[in-house]
Every structure is written in structure tokens, then in C-alpha cells.
């Protein structure tokens, strides 16, 4: 037993190095984003975002030490407690929070501001891991699915109430983990297909799309075994798809809020109003596109520095990479993220307990979703959703939350030999 403990107490340094690289290069890029040549600035200046970010990084290290020092069993035992605490914080912030840019999602204590929604991510991950640690639970069962829906849905609903739809959307990322844990694939595929059709409807005239669907349907019927039941299913499916297509207009004009409509319009055709709703996407693409193959060089970027790109040190930090380091820089950063995600999956898969594996996949899910949406929006492949690039974007809450999220996994992994399957 003791032998095992020593053998298992291996910290995964690959993850830590990748984390370190992302955090440090994020910090440098934040400096580049706010840099003003004429002011002779210092990267350590605490009045700059880069100085503050360094402070967050330093304090994150304290968090890392604490996480690593706490007994690994704590995360398992206190999973629900942590979840409950965060839910309470989300309720409190609704009541007593401070409104920033239309979202009531911040606590303010002195000059220190905290965004509980960021911490909901690891709390939900812990709660999910705790719930699913019972290996007898089958994700194909409806009651189990409903509980999962509740665990994810409750904080998501509270965050939407705060007015921060972007942060709430992040919980959709858990679908990756659920898929791995055996959630039936048809609903996921249908969901993805509906999303794809929805997007196509925005890009292609409805009539063409409907004709295409009918043609595809007829072809499938023609080339498959002509079983009456099967034909019926295909016809019903076709009608459903056409229904989705027809409903798009209704959803866009009647369900989405005007600013959300604009974000979708900006995605489809930012040139229609480059100074209005298309501004962010247009300027973001200009900044990245102007970087060329090798980039303009560190601190040589103009579009980000001169504020053409909005939120250039937070949500649009990727523009700085694209502009100053070009396609090569983008390749490196994307590769590091992919390496981190693969490493997390590798770690998750080597866990002996389902708790740890579910938690690992949850971490991968959340980071992947952020990566997907954040970079996607900067290059015009996703609507503008205000969520940060993990470890990279400026902001204490975000950095703390991702650090906690990742290092709990590192801690659990270090003790994987002791975490016996239950």
C-alpha cells in the first residue's frame, strides 16, 4: 500500500509545462495588446493589464500549492458541497452583484472583482464526477440523463439570468464528456445536425436547402432497401429537417434578443454593416489577416495596439497572436492547446476511478469548448460570444478558475494509484 502510494505520487509535469507556456505567452501577448510605444511602458507596471495579469499568475501559483496540498479525497468528498457553495454564490451575485456591461455577474470587494460564473465550471465538473462515480449509473437511462441535465442546467440557468449567455453556453461543452461516458450518440448527432442545418439555413437560401433535402431524401430511398417502415422514417426525418429550416427565421427574429441577432448577422455577413454589428468580426479578421505568414513581430502590431480590435486583451487576445506572430504563431498556439487537450484526455483515460476520469474529461470538455468558440469567433467562424481563451486572456477570475480546474486534475492524477474504483 505504501509502495503504491509513493509510486503513484507522480505529478504530470507535461501538463504543468504546457500550462506554464500558455500562461507566460498569454502574459506577453496581453502586454503587446496594451503596449503604447510613446509611453515607454514596462511589462511589470501594475497599472497595465500585463502587470495585473502577472499578479494573477503569481497568486494562481499560491492556489496551485494549496490545491496540491489538500488531500486528494477532499475533492471527491466535498464535490457536492463545492457545487452547492457555487450555486449559492450565483444566487447571491444575482441579488447583490455589480452590473458590468449589462451583466450582473460580478462581486465587488474593494477594488477586487470576482466572477462566480467562472468558478461554476470546476464546481459542475466536480459534481458531475461525483454523481457519475457510481459506475452502475448508465447514461442511457432517462432518470440519469435528467439528473445530469439538472446538475448542468441549474448553474447555466442562473448564469443566463445574470445576463451572461456566453458563460452559460460553456456548459454545452460537457457533451464531450457525456459522449465519452456512454451518452447515446443519436441525440448528440441530431443536435449537431440541427446546428449544421441551422447554420446552412443562414448561409444558403431556404428554397435551395429544401430542394436539396428532398433530393437527398429521394436518393436515400432510391438506393436503400425499400422497406415501408424505413421509407416512413426517412420521410418523417425529411419533414422534420424542413421544419427546422422553416423555423430559423422565427427563432432568429422572435427568440433571440437584438444583440444576439446582430452577432449571428455579423457571422454570416460582417461586411453588411462593418461599422455596426460587423465591427468586431471585421476588425478582428483584419488584425489577424494582416499578420501574414510570420507576423509583424512582438510589440509591432498596429490593429490591436491602436484599439481597432475591441477587448483586445481579453476575449480577442488571439488577434494579437495572429497579428504579431502570423500564421506560424497561430499554429504554435493552436498546437499547444491541442497538445494540452490530448494530454488531459490521456490523463483521464489512465485513471482507475470513474470519478477522476469523468473529471478529466470535464476539464477537456470545458477547455475545448472555450478554445472552439473563442478562436472561432476571432476568425469569423463563430458568432461573437464573450468567453475568454483559457490561461491566455486577461482576467483574474478566469485564470483562477482554469488553474483550479486543471490542477485538481493534476492532483487527482498524482494519486491515481490510490483512487480505487468503487
Amino acid at each position: 500500500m505504501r509502495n503504491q502510494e509513493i509510486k503513484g505520487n507522480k505529478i504530470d509535469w507535461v501538463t504543468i509545462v504546457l500550462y506554464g507556456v500558455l500562461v507566460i505567452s498569454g502574459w506577453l501577448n496581453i502586454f503587446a495588446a496594451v503596449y503604447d510605444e510613446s509611453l515607454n511602458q514596462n511589462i511589470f507596471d501594475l497599472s497595465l493589464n500585463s502587470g495585473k495579469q502577472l499578479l494573477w499568475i503569481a497568486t494562481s501559483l499560491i492556489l496551485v500549492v494549496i490545491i496540491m496540498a489538500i488531500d486528494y479525497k477532499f475533492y471527491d468528498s466535498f464535490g457536492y458541497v463545492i457545487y452547492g457553495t457555487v450555486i449559492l454564490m450565483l444566487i447571491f451575485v444575482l441579488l447583490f452583484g455589480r452590473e458590468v456591461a449589462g451583466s450582473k455577474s460580478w462581486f465587488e470587494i474593494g477594488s477586487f472583482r470576482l466572477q462566480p460564473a467562472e468558478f461554476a465550471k470546476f464546481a459542475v465538473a466536480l459534481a458531475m464526477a461525483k454523481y457519475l462515480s457510481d459506475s452502475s449509473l448508465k447514461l442511457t437511462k432517462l432518470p440519469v440523463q435528467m439528473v445530469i441535465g439538472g446538475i448542468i442546467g441549474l448553474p447555466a440557468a442562473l448564469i443566463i439570468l445574470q445576463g451572461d449567455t456566453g458563460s452559460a453556453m460553456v456548459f454545452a461543452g460537457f457533451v464531450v464528456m457525456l459522449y465519452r461516458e456512454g451518452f447515446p450518440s443519436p441525440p448528440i448527432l441530431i443536435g449537431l445536425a440541427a446546428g449544421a442545418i441551422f447554420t446552412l439555413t443562414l448561409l444558403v437560401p431556404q428554397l435551395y436547402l429544401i430542394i436539396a433535402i428532398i433530393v437527398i431524401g429521394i436518393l436515400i430511398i432510391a438506393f436503400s432497401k425499400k422497406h415501408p417502415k424505413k421509407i416512413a422514417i426517412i420521410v418523417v426525418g425529411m419533414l422534420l429537417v424542413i421544419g427546422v429550416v422553416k423555423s430559423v427565421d422565427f427563432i432568429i427574429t422572435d427568440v433571440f434578443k437584438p444583440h444576439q441577432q446582430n452577432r449571428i448577422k455579423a457571422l454570416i455577413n460582417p461586411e453588411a454593416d462593418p461599422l455596426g454589428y460587423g465591427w468586431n468580426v471585421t476588425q478582428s479578421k483584419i488584425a489577424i489577416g494582416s499578420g501574414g505568414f510570420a507576423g509583424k513581430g512582438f510589440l509591432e502590431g498596429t490593429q490591436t495596439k491602436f484599439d481597432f480590435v475591441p477587448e483586445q486583451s481579453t476575449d480577442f487576445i488571439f488577434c494579437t497572436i495572429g497579428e504579431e506572430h502570423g500564421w506560424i504563431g497561430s499554429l504554435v498556439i493552436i498546437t499547444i492547446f491541442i497538445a494540452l487537450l490530448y494530454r488531459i484526455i490521456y490523463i483521464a483515460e489512465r485513471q482507475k476511478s470513474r470519478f477522476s476520469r469523468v473529471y478529466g474529461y470535464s476539464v477537456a470538455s470545458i477547455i475545448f469548448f472555450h478554445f472552439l468558440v473563442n478562436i472561432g469567433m476571432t476568425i469569423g467562424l463563430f458568432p461573437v460570444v464573450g468567453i475568454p481563451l483559457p490561461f491566455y486572456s486577461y482576467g483574474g477570475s478566469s485564470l483562477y478558475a482554469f488553474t483550479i480546474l486543471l490542477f485538481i486534475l493534476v492532483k487527482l492524477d498524482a494519486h491515481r494509484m490510490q483512487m480505487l474504483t468503487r
Partner: protein
Amino acid sequence: MNDNRRYIIQIAIALVAIIYLVKLFFIQVLDPSYKFAADNNIIQRVDEYPYRGLIYDRNEKLIVYNNPVYDLMVVPKEVKVKDTLFFCSLFNITLEDYKTRLQAAKDYSYVKPSVFIKQLSNKDFAAAQDFFVDFPGFYIQARTVRSYPFPILANALGYIGETSRRELDRDSSKYYKKRDYIGKSGLELKYEKQLRGRRGVQYRMVNVRGVEKGRFKQGEYDTTSIPGNNLISTIDVELQRYAETLLKGKVGSIVAIEPATGEILAMVSGPSYDPNLLTGREYGNNFGALVKDSLNPLFNRALQGQFPPGSIFKIAQALVALQEGVITPDTRIPCNRSIINCHGAHSFEDLKGAITNSCNPYFRNVYQRVLNQNLSPNTFIDTELGLEIWRKHIMSFGFGSKLGIDLPNEKGGYIPTVALYDRIYGDNQWKYSTIYSNSIGQGEVQVVPLQMANFAATVANRGYYLRPHLIKAIGENQQPLPEYQEKIYTSVERKHFDVAVNAMEEVVRSGTGQYRAKLKDIIVCGKTGTVQNSQGEDHSVFIAFAPKDNPKIAMAVYVENAGEGARAAAGITGLMIEKYINGCTDNIVQETYILKGKFIY
């Protein structure tokens, strides 16, 4: 059972990364438009307008200079005017006006500056200057407009204005841009290239709020502006002022030339206007008013008006006849008034007497001798041949074609051709008796006042002229321009001119010019002309030069509907010659007579 799902997830992640990298490769490496858009965002082209060249008179008196005006510029994105009404009252515009102007600026660009109010005067600018802190988004851009210390010479100087669509389209060098100033007429147009200098440009980097962030690439692509060249004019400001004063209230023109150089000392077209009207903010309104004026002050009569020369043409006729050998100075011809009328008591004059008395029948006969020299037994063909010879000589005096003065839109006048009369009367249907009116400067002959003055200079030079011009030197290099150094000789030999000069002396001494062109201490040689005008009163014409030897000034005065040449035109000529040579005139009586302008009695 779900182990293979791990790989599906990994493939999906890899797929996303690949899609993103491909998309990035498209926008970063393959598509150059984002780089242009980025430069467009941050690079602000700031033009550095060169100082337009000044114009001086022959005595280095400034006649055209630059005056700063202030364009009120706006960057719509920055505009935060709390008290719009106060703003409007300060700049004297209505609230409606404010809104439309701001909308126009927004339509142009939300982040780039555009003109809000053009050309605030010094006074308006001074009044508003202190309040600019309260009007973020507005700032002042200084430019210069033309200014003139003397309200004279408008028709010759011309004016500048903002480039028109047509001018931009025609500009093959693509130098001009919208809102650039360009010479529109007169010297400003003719010497546009020399006056304008070369525009400089600075590429500045600006942030999204338009705040300057230094030079693009440390100013690698910047160019400095080169100021335009100054022009030294041939005009004598004092003489020009005096001439304009004398012509005030009259329709006509005055041209004075220094015979030895071809330099134009004064050139007046009346009525004219104050050149200061066509600068600054009121340019548009004033221009409209000038265009609508029925007397057309924008029309430069001195080189665009084409008139019958009248009796002054007899000098040319005499010279041609002498050259052709069809008369001698001693040829006497009876004053037979049966075909053409005459005036004064005389009956059988020689050439000098005929000129002094402006004898019409004499010159009718002289013209006949020139046209019918018996070169062909057929009288029609003989006249045609004679007309060709006559026309060649007349044209050698600079009549019938443009002289090539350094001003745009010069007219050439007209010396009738064989083709013209064939067209009017038919081939072999006309002969001397059909066209004799030309003999006394009526008929189909049309000349430009500038050509009359040039003719006076030609006689003063005894047989040649130098191309008349208004600019004698350009820029630092004060050397005379070579294109005006060439002596252009007439086809009449020098020896014949003395007769003409003596006759012109006699005109002023004892003939039609004696009352108003004669001066106490200067020998003036001149010739009157009274041009018959079927539409109204006759036109008063006078050409002259003085002094007789080493002439300093040659001139032509053409006053429309002012009756006899001996009155208005001769009177103005006398005063001007005295003014130019003596520096002043004490002939108050004549000055009053001219200024009063009542010549018909």
C-alpha cells in the same frame, strides 16, 4: 464499450484545429485584402500643402499673395457637443444645417476627418478658438486662399478654385485630388504647374479614435512639400491701376506694351471685378453673380473680344501698299467721296496727309491697288491673288491668328480669306468693289485689342514685335524667359515704317489726335479710329506709341459705344502715356473729362 469514443473525440478536436489553421492560412497568407484594410485603418495620409507661388509686378510690388483660412474639420466618432445651440450660434449655422453637415460627414467616414465648415475667416476662427475644448471631434485645419492687395488685374490674373470632377478626370498625371486648389483661368491656369509647387505627404499612424501614434515606418514614405515658384509679372501696378480707374464705368479694353520687350505694362478689360471676390467662402455666390452680370466681367475683352479695327487699320494698309510698291509716300489720290464718305476739309493728299486726315477714299484706292495688280487678266482671279498677297502681309503684323500671349483663351481675330468670299458670294462672283470695306478696317476684318497694341508696338519698333507676355521671369532664376526674346519681323521692310511713324506723329501733332493725345514734352505717335456700329453708337479706338524715338510704351484703347476715337480712346491714351513716362499727369481737365465718361455729344 465506449473506449473507441476517446478516439472519435480526439479526431474531432484535431479536425477543429485543422479547420482553424486552414481558415487562418486563407486570411493570413493567401488573402492580401486584410493587409490593405489594416494599413487603411491605421495610416492617415496627411497632405502638406505647398505654398502657392506669389506674383509680383515689374517693380517687385506684390500683386498676389496667400492668406490663411481655416477649415473646420470633424471626426464624427469623436463628436461630443453638449451645447449644440451655442455651437451653431458661434459658427452662424442653423440646427438643421448642423445635422445635415454632421450626417454628410458620417456618410463619408465615421472615423476619418472631413470638412464641416469650409474657410472660416480669421475673425470667425478667432471668435471660436477658445471654445474648441468644449467641442471634441472638431478641429481646425489651416489652408491658404489667394489675396490681392490691389483690386485690379482680375481678368489677367484669373482665379483658383477647388478641383472639379472634370478637371480630376482630365488630370492624366493623377496629381490632383478632391478639394485641391487649381488655377481656373488667367495666369493662375496658365502657370498652374509653376505656381502650385509639389504637395508633400506624411503617413501618420492613428489609433481607432484618430489619435496620432507617430509616423508610419518612421516616415520612410513621407515626402516634403516644395513651395511653388513666384512669378515676376511685366505689369506696372501703378499704370494698371490708373488704366482701370480711367476705364471705370466704360465697356472696353486697354492694352499697353513695352515695344522693345513685348512686355505688357497694363491690360484692362472693362467692366472688371475685384479679384478678392473670387477667394474665400463667398467664392460660389460671387462667381454666380459675376456669371449672371449682363456685361460679363469675367470676359477678358483685351484678348477675347474681336472687333473691326476701324481707321487705325489704315496704317497697316499703307505699309502693305508701300511694300508692294503700288504707292509711294508721294502718291496723291483725290478725296472722291462718291463711293465712300470722308470727313474734314481736304481734297488731294499724299500718304502722310491722307493718314493725318484719315481719308477714306484714299485708302479705298490704295486697297484697290494692292488687290488688283494685274497679275491675271481676269479681274476676279486678279482680286483673289491680290487678297492672298494682302492677307499674308497683314497676318505678318500678328493679325488674324493668336499672338501666343501667356494667357488661356486668347482669340485670333479674323483676316478674310478667298474661301470666305467664295462662300459668301460664290466663286468668281466677287471682286475688289465687293469687299472694299476692309480698306478702312470695317468689313470682314476682326482684330483683338491685344493685336492692336501689338501693332502699335510693331510700328514703334519699325518692323518687328516681340511676343506680348505677362510673365517675364519665374522663381529664383530671374532671367528673362527665352520664348519671349525672339524678334518677329513683319513682311514689310523697315524703310517703309518711317513714313507711317511720321504720319502718326502728324496725327497727334495736327490731325485727329491733336486735342487729347498731344503731350507737352513727349512726341506721341498715334492713330484714331471710329468704328461704325450698326447696333448703336460708334466705338472709339486709338493706337499710339511714345516717345517717337526709343519708344517706351505702345498701346491700344478700345472703348465701346463711345463715339469718335479722338475723344475717349485718344484721351485715355494721352493720360496713360504721360503717367507712364512722366510718372504723373497734371492734366486735370482731361482726367475729369475721361472719368465723367460722357463722350457722345
